[in-house]
């Protein structure tokens, strides 16, 4: 491994020269000594070239979308168009301050207004708030809205939210944060919500239901109308986790089939880059009756142009972000949507679905697949066959894929499939690239049978060999100890 940046430090080196300060009042005359820090913060000292070399060296140790296929299920690792990057960096986006007079932000506000409307149309919802900055924050916002709705109606007895056992971990975590009890519902043998069980679980205390559609098995929840009827009969609301929206663009509008609330992951469906873990954006759309509870401000248009609208302040859940959300991410998603249009969006989902089904059709002869029906944009294969026959785990298979130049699928999730490998190729992968990935998976299946030891050793050709996660916990080492 490369040294840390601290180990490259040499006293007196500079990466930046600042203009000379035009004033020389002694600092202690401006701020008394007792407020000064006692010793200098020992940041590293390097030239610009030293810094560049260090971080370029680090960059070479990453997998990224331009390097190769990134089949992480439910993460939608599609290509991120470069025009977005060029346009968003314009100074009249990058150098805007959130407290500028509205008259100087008209272009930005207009863009946000149009994006609110486009996302509302795509989801079939009445109104969208762009404020949440991540999918989990969108969930949190959505559950707060459910809470605000029930409080406004005097539904104080509603204490629980139902979540399928195939859901992302953020779903129950977001519910807990709002103060709800989480009731888990088992999926049925078809990998879908068990309607009979749902009927048993739902009662007057049910505040809502969170459903990912298509679910994390890559299957469309066909009985959504019935589910909606059950929920609405006790005045509970249905939340759609939009993590898998890449399957539905132009095919289904969630707001028109029973869902009351949805969050979007712009860093998944709408091609904004993941940035190594963020920043993303998690806008939230709601049906008409929930509009009063959306975060403030919304962007509205009047005769005087566009403005930040706080008029529903008294009913709103308040704010989840200091300002108006991740503006730079929103600009990128706006550009993407405008370049695709209605037909382009539908083509995205069609090709995402075709690519996933094509891969599944090839791989089902080599790996166990619990739910063999046609999938949506992703499917879940598993390593149970290899585990049983060759004592090779899904983790071993994942690590071997790294050797072959691919990122691994999402592994060991959803939790209901043992040794799960959740595969989402996305629409941006070509036939050749899908074939290459399939070929690698087939080779690995053969290696499992012929040379399982190789799998246990994998990866062999990555910048580091298999990393000891357990030691990172047992001998916790979260910061570099600066020696001076």
């Amino acid at each position, binding site marked *: 491994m490369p040294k840390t940046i601290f180990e490259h430090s040499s006293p007196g080196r500079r990466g930046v020269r600042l203009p000379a300060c035009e004033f020389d009042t002694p600092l202690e005359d401006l*701020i008394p000594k007792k407020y000064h820090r006692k010793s200098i913060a020992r940041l590293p000292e390097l030239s610009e070239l030293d810094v560049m070399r260090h971080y370029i060296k680090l960059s070479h140790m990453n997998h990224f979308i331009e390097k190769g296929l990134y089949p992480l299920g439910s993460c939608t690792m599609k290509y991120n168009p470069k025009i977005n990057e060029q346009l968003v960096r314009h100074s009249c986006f990058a150098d805007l301050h959130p407290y*500028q007079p509205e008259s100087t932000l008209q272009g930005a506000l207009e863009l946000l207004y149009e994006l609110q409307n486009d996302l509302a149309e795509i989801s079939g919802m009445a109104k969208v708030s762009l404020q949440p900055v991540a999918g989990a924050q969108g969930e949190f916002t959505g559950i707060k809205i459910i809470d605000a709705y029930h409080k406004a109606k005097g539904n104080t007895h509603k204490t629980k939210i139902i979540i399928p056992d195939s859901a992302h971990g953020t779903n129950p975590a977001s519910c807990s944060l709002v103060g709800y009890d989480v009731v888990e519902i088992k999926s049925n043998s078809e990998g879908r919500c068990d309607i009979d069980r749902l009927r048993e679980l739902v009662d007057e205390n049910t505040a809502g239901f969170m459903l990912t559609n298509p679910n994390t098995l890559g299957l469309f929840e066909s009985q959504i109308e019935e589910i909606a009827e059950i929920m609405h009969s006790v005045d509970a609301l249905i939340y759609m986790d939009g993590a898998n929206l890449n399957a539905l663009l132009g095919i289904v509008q969630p707001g028109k089939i029973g869902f009351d609330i949805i969050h979007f992951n712009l860093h998944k469906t709408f091609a904004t880059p993941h940035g190594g873990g963020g920043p993303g954006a998690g806008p939230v759309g709601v049906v008409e009756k929930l509009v009063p509870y959306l975060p403030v401000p919304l962007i509205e248009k009047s005769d005087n142009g566009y403005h930040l609208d706080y008029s529903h302040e008294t009913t709103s859940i308040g704010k989840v972000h200091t*300002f108006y959300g991740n503006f730079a991410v929103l600009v990128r998603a706006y550009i993407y949507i405008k370049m695709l249009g209605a037909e*382009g969006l539908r083509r995205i989902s069609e090709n995402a679905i075709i690519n996933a089904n094509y891969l599944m059709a090839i791989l089902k002869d080599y790996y166990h697949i619990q739910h063999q029906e046609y999938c*949506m944009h992703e499917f879940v294969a598993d390593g149970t066959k290899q585990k049983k026959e060759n004592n090779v785990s899904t983790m071993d298979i994942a690590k071997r894929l790294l050797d072959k130049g691919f990122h691994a699928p999402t592994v060991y999730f959803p939790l209901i499939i043992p040794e799960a490998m959740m595969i989402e190729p996305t629409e941006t992968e070509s*036939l050749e690239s899908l074939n290459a990935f399939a070929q690698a998976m087939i080779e690995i299946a053969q290696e499992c049978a012929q040379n399982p030891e190789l799998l246990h050793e994998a990866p062999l050709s990555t910048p580091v060999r298999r990393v000891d996660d357990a030691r990172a916990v047992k001998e916790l080492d979260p*910061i570099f100890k600066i020696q001076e």
Partner: protein
Amino acid sequence: MPYISNTDRDRREMFAKIGIENFDELIQTIPKKLRIKDGLKMDKALSELEITEKIKGKTCQNLCVQNVNSFLGAGVYDHFIPAAVDYIISRPEFFTAYTPYQAEVSQGTLQFIYEYQSMICELTGMEIANASMYDGASAVAEAILMAVRKNHLLKALIPESLHPEYYRVIKAYTEGIGVELVRVPCSNGLIDLDKLAEMLDETVGSVVLQSPNYFGNIEDAHKVSELVHKEAKCLLIACVDPISLAILNAPSEYEADIVVGEGQALGNSMYMGGPLFGFFATKLNMSRLMPGRIVGGTIDKTGARAYALTLQTREQHIRRGKATSNICSNQSLCTLAATVYMSLMGRQGLREVAIMSTQNAHYLARELTKIKGIEMRYPDAYFFKEFVIKTPLPAQKIIEMMLSHGIYAGVAVAENELMIAVTEKKTKAAMDEYVSAMQEVSNA
């Protein structure tokens, strides 16, 4: 079709392999009546050339701070950003990578996060930091929630001098689990220490201290800490400007228990207030109560140095409803910008940024208060790079009039109070221009 490789020929080949004739067969599980009938109602698709023109139509209606003389702050600041920062964060190796779950092909991301955590701890004097929160506001909220996990006390004291938008976010984040937020009044732009002493008792779980506070004033953190820690279980949450830490007390010096803040000032463009990032640091004995991702050093199977996500059993993908936070995606790339920024600035550079900002702010304050009718709102408080003046006209009116001089005068914090932020980017000439415009405006 941009961004899709599949041609009709490719699709035919794929359909054959799948064993279908047409696409509709793949979506039979979506009942027909649930499908969109006439397509989405969207604008016509634009080419790259056309979208570039369309965006030009937007940007030309914005007036950015480079084209005016801006003195806006209040949580987001226009500090200088070296060119190399954007170069590094634009590398697709960092930019289009996912969360570093597969450590063997994510060492670049993991190592920079480790370096980022180290730098945050060096600035704050803490022992462990996470990989980021969404912004300063949610970082304070998460700190209050962590304090509840530590001492199970559901009351938090929030000074009136905390950023008002932070308060709203904190409220949204903490009301669900029943945290009682009690406001501590201010006197002369600082926490009223007598009132704080009265309000503290064994039911208080945490006290938030923002310094420099919303008004730019430097709180007497040592005194606040002394009062807070008279209560054995109560935790002190410091919310700080990372640039200020180059010259002002590291929060460890006044024994803060949790240190958070807004990190945007470290090498990130303002982008109308987002993305921002919150930093979050604390002491090792609370590591298992922390929210968010943490990277730790370890070894690979050959014994070579390596990095991995650690203490993951705190997180939502494992602990689900009992996780320490619901956060998953964070603001990783913004922390890369901060890490590269701090590396380029180094210890001297960051000190110079802090000192120049301080010097400039104090020069502008001195000159402005020479104008008849203008005085410091909090003359007895010490400040860093931001301060509040009393204005002879409504502050909103002044902001409008100064705009016609090409100046963003500041943020109105009360009817006749204007808050002004100054960074190292301001020259004496730019500040003199502000002063003479203000002279004209306030005598109008």
